[in-house]
């Protein structure tokens, strides 16, 4: 009996690993679902420093705007959320997050619109300061934020969401501009302070992209380790990105890194 159980445990080990490796091979089979060039702006080494107990290096996918305006009840309902406003806005109600798929656009029209929005904020701040309603530092803060957005913030913005990845891909066929990824999504009831807007509305938020981080493989390890150790005076918010990574997404929407290109980051941005 013991022998049989031991053999079963061994077979389970082998079979499970075989399944995982086969799944990875299937995911990476040609052609890739998407191919993209992302810099440190989109794939960062994290903000809290390296864990000294862990020699592995991961880069985290950064997203700009996880609460897009378009993610309303019309997008929430197909995902399976119960969009009854009164029910959701009852403070005793707590909707569970759901798995869905999100389309991320890389430096496209959504990014341009986002930049223009920040430029408009700077113009508004200029008028406010000129009127004397705020101190000049307010305008400087807005300008600095615009610079950070322009030069450091991730250029990946969500442009759509849905329950069917294939359907989303058919709507956004450019595999070098658009990523379709699994994501954890949640529904909230929010109060809208704008004039002429309904007092309460439903909004969706992207809680987490799946997977959220990408492992740095062995052939890129030496290069990325230099950046991960961060002993070259690099400032995440002030300096330009140091590297560009080639990313591919597979049939199971699971990504992998294929190449790294160092970038010149020491030149300071003009004020």
């Amino acid at each position, binding site marked *: 009996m013991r022998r049989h159980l031991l053999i079963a445990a061994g077979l389970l080990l082998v079979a499970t690993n075989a399944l995982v*490796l086969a799944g990875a091979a299937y995911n990476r089979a040609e052609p890739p679902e998407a191919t993209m060039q992302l810099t440190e702006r989109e794939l960062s080494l994290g903000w809290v420093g390296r864990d000294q107990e862990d020699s592995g*290096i991961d880069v985290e996918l950064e997203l700009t705007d996880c609460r897009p305006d378009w993610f309303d009840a019309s997008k929430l309902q197909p995902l399976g959320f119960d969009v009854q406003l009164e029910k959701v806005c009852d403070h005793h109600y707590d909707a569970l997050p759901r798995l869905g798929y999100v389309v991320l656009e890389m430096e496209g029209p959504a990014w341009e619109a986002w930049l223009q929005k920040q430029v408009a904020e700077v113009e508004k701040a200029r008028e406010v300061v000129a009127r004397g309603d705020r101190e000049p530092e307010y305008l400087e803060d807005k300008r600095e934020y615009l610079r950070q957005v322009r030069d450091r913030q991730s250029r990946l913005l969500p442009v759509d969401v849905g329950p069917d990845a294939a359907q989303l891909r058919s709507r956004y066929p450019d595999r070098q501009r658009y990523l379709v990824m699994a994501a954890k999504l949640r529904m909230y009831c929010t109060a809208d302070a704008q004039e002429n807007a309904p007092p309460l509305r439903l909004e969706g938020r992207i809680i987490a992209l799946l997977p959220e981080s*990408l*492992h740095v493989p062995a052939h890129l390890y030496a290069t990325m380790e230099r950046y991960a150790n961060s002993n070259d005076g690099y400032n995440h918010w002030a300096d330009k990105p140091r590297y560009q990574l080639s990313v591919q997404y597979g049939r199971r929407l*699971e990504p992998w890194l294929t190449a790294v290109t160092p970038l010149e980051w020491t030149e300071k941005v003009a004020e």
Partner: protein
Amino acid sequence: MSSEMEDSYQAQARIDRINAFRTELAQLTQEGLAPPETLRGQWAGHHDQLLAHWAAQYEVDTSGSQKQLTLGMRIASLLGALALSAAIYLFFLHFWGGLALPLQVTLLVGLPLVAMLGVEWAARRERTRYFAAIVALVAFAAFVLDLSMLGRIFNVIPSQNAFLAWGAFALLLAYAYELRLLLVAGLLCLLGYLSATVGTWGGGYWLSFGERPENFLLAGALITTIGLLNLRHLPGFAALYRLVGLLTIFIAVLVLSHWGRVSYLPLPKDQVEIGYQLFGFLLAGLTIWYGIRRGWSGLINVGSTFFILYLYTRLVDWWWDGLPRYLFFLLVGFIAILLLLVLRRLHSYQRRATP
């Protein structure tokens, strides 16, 4: 099934009865009620023979001091297992980063396989299986490391299926070597898998299964049921099934009795809370009753603990804000005395019913 462990379990039970008998016999002798010398000699000789036989055949405790040493060895075995598992996990984490992919995969897949063979080797060489238990937990930890790291290396979108694999592996080792620690590890993994799967039935994301305690009730009930059925359980296994299952249910009910908003039930939260409070008391009472009926002290202990926990949390909820603190504790004290009187009455009733 007459496994070696089941025989040693029965041998240990008999040894405990023999020691208790000898203690009582010594007491009777002191009180002037000693049996005839020849009879005492026969008993002593027979018992000495039995003790020597079992001590030679099994790893049993023939005295109180040996029992204490055994407890110490069990604690040491547990601590050793946990520490070695952590060491192996952290050791891999410390060095794996720069290794080539084939080497990473080979190490991850090979380590639990080698550890599994190590369990068999240790079990053949040492009948107490303390070392086998250590190596078995290391094998389990290595399998957890294996799948976790492969998931990280290949950027796999996480799912609850890993819990199923880990749980099955732990249970197979637990039953192969009769290791209770691995049984608990396996049950906890299966609990996670079942609860996460139940959570996805409602469309929720699997990792959020902890946000709805009701996800745990089905899994807890299944595990408890296995412990209640008259199956050919290995020694101590049935009690662990009951313990893990009941703890799961009781804790879930405790949470729901305080936070009704996290329930699936489409009812006002106050009604949900009251419903689960009543259910909790009923379940605790049933557990105590069934434990008394079957003579399972584990059930009685778990039922009593949660009955008291439910009662005291209710008292705090009702009276803590409304009463002066001294009055609150005075009332709690009186209720405790009342409980004591009720339980004492039950105790004497049971004594009269079963002499």
